[in-house]
């Protein structure tokens, strides 16, 4: 329902042909490390991810997998001053030569965040100013980025309509709104500067299911209406399954599998993804005992050697304990893994020694 490919071109922004232009965002070997009393915490460690124009991408992972830190790295809002970061975050909002967000200074990054990347942090619906009318807060956000007061005020009704709110909501105070309405106001603020990328961190957590559905559908509609790419970070795989085009599964500071949503959840390549899918109950059909994943998430200051999942993996091999697998695209074609045949059709990336391409060349076998 939300994945109809027709995209209306928006005035003032050239319609980009997805096939010929470069990706909107390309994260290359990103490391974010913090020194802690227990040693260096490698919260994000060798992370790779690509987001295309007008794409809905999901990032899923357990708590402690580093997904929020990854988002903060893209936005350059990492709070710890003594962080060590490596790698590149190439961003190309207009399809031209990309800029590395890691190299921008504070002022340049602030502009980038307002005009090209919008951020909806976790729990941000509680961050509305309680003593200001909602409309004024939307206007403020635009005026901050150089839009005239009059122009900003004119845009408010349209922005509210985009997220399914009536015009009168502008005159209300946050406490007069329900949780779902507040979240939509936050989204209205995020889209007010017509960004190319919206990053939403757990946008529907702590909302009731039917409100969650409304919010997520509102986000999905924006993609069509505004020609924007959206990155959704959530621990909730069913939410991704309903919403995104492509998903990246994060484990222990790295993306371990990425691909289109349908094949990733239905024919998962990585044992971790399989474990996650196998732990989710669904309604209808026979009730089978779910497995879950044994063991606990390792700590960022003490990732296991080799494949970081090896001590929880039911398919562990000798090589897994010593050699780290690389995230590589698989060649198209059928192959047999986990005792079943998986036909790799679209581009799918995985980091696991069950796939020979993933083992670095020259590594002992």
């Amino acid at each position, binding site marked *: 329902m939300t994945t109809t490919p027709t995209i209306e071109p928006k005035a003032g922004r050239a319609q980009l042909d997805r096939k010929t232009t470069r990706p909107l965002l390309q994260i290359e070997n990103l490391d974010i490390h913090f020194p802690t009393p227990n040693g260096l915490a490698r919260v994000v460690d060798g992370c790779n991810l690509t987001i295309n124009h007008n794409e809905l991408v999901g990032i899923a992972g357990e708590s402690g997998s580093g997904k929020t830190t990854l988002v903060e790295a893209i936005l350059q809002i990492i709070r710890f001053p003594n962080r060590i970061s490596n790698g590149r975050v190439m961003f190309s909002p207009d399809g031209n030569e990309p800029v590395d967000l890691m190299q921008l200074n504070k002022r340049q990054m602030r502009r980038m965040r307002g005009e090209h990347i919008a951020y909806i942090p976790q729990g941000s619906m509680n961050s509305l100013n309680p003593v200001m009318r909602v409309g004024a807060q939307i206007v403020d956000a635009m005026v901050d980025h150089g839009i005239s007061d009059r122009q900003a005020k004119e845009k408010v009704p349209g922005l509210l309509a985009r997220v399914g709110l009536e015009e009168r909501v502008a005159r209300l105070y946050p406490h007069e709104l329900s949780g779902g309405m507040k979240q939509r106001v936050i989204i209205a603020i995020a889209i007010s500067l017509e960004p190319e990328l919206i990053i939403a961190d757990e946008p529907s957590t702590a909302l*009731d*299911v*039917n409100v969650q559905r409304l919010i997520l559908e509102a986000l999905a509609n924006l993609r069509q209406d505004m020609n924007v790419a959206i990155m959704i970070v959530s621990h909730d795989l069913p939410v991704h399954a309903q919403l995104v085009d492509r998903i990246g599964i994060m484990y222990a500071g790295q993306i371990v599998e990425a691909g289109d949503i349908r094949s990733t959840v239905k024919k998962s390549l990585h044992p971790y993804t399989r474990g*996650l899918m196998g732990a*989710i*109950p669904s309604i209808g059909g026979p009730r089978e005992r*779910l497995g*879950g994943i044994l063991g*606990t998430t390792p700590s960022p200051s003490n990732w296991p050697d080799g494949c970081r999942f090896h001590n929880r993996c039911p398919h562990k091999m000798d090589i897994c304990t010593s050699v780290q697998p690389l995230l590589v695209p698989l060649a198209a074609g059928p192959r047999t893994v986990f005792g079943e045949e998986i036909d790799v059709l679209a581009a799918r990336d995985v980091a696991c020694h069950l796939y020979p391409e993933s083992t670095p060349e020259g590594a002992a076998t």
Partner: protein
Amino acid sequence: MSNPPLLQLEKATTIFGRGASETVANKDVSLALDEHESRLISIVGESGSGKTTAARCLLGLQKPTSGQALWRGKDIYKLKKQERFMFRREVQAVFQDPYGIYNPFYKINRVFDLTISKFKLADGNTEKLELIDDALKAVNLRPHDVLGRYPHQLSGGERQRVMLARAYLVKPKVIVADEAISMLDVAVRAVIMNILMDFRENLGISTVFITHDLSAAYYLGGDIMVMQRGRVVETGSSVDVMNNPQDDYTKLLLSSIPSPDPDQRWGSAPIPVAAAD
């Protein structure tokens, strides 16, 4: 009806506040658990539906404004000392927040030590250690992974399993689990639910499972009680109710749950905005 039910809510109504700010958290909620037939009852609903209030009434943590919470036919709030002791032994709880449930001041061991001494479960140290060992085994924890540590050194799943081990120690007749999996990672939720199902199968412990997650209720099976704004709107066997919901609210909830299968789209009918807000 020779024996009164083990644990029962009888038309329990709970009202918070007075006058204009009055909130009816529960209205005429009834529920009964028999001693000889172990059951799994899920109470589901959204925030504000009153499901947690119902759980707290069952646990004797919230006194209903009218109606009664009964243990073996006696009002929970009028139990004599010895009866109270037995009530606490027979009805145990697992709470939502695996972080706040631990007093940060003490090591994990104290949870077990205190439970054993308060309920007089062991004579002497050897027996105590055996009990703890046994309880940890029942929830798949290794003693040296948790004993001697402070709560903040354990993961959420481990902490919740320690809580289940604690309940196991007491060998209760009923465990009331209030949103016990909602703050845990997906990968460990199933582990916790499996433990509860095993407790029922192997030890005959009933579970009252409070959750906002209908898929968890479906997975657990047993019976379900759907609550909306303090009232029970639908009851029945979990599988039947979810395969064939009768109440409009239950249908609305079911149509909003995201399925992990991308081919099974959210209900095609749009939800009326007014109902959600």
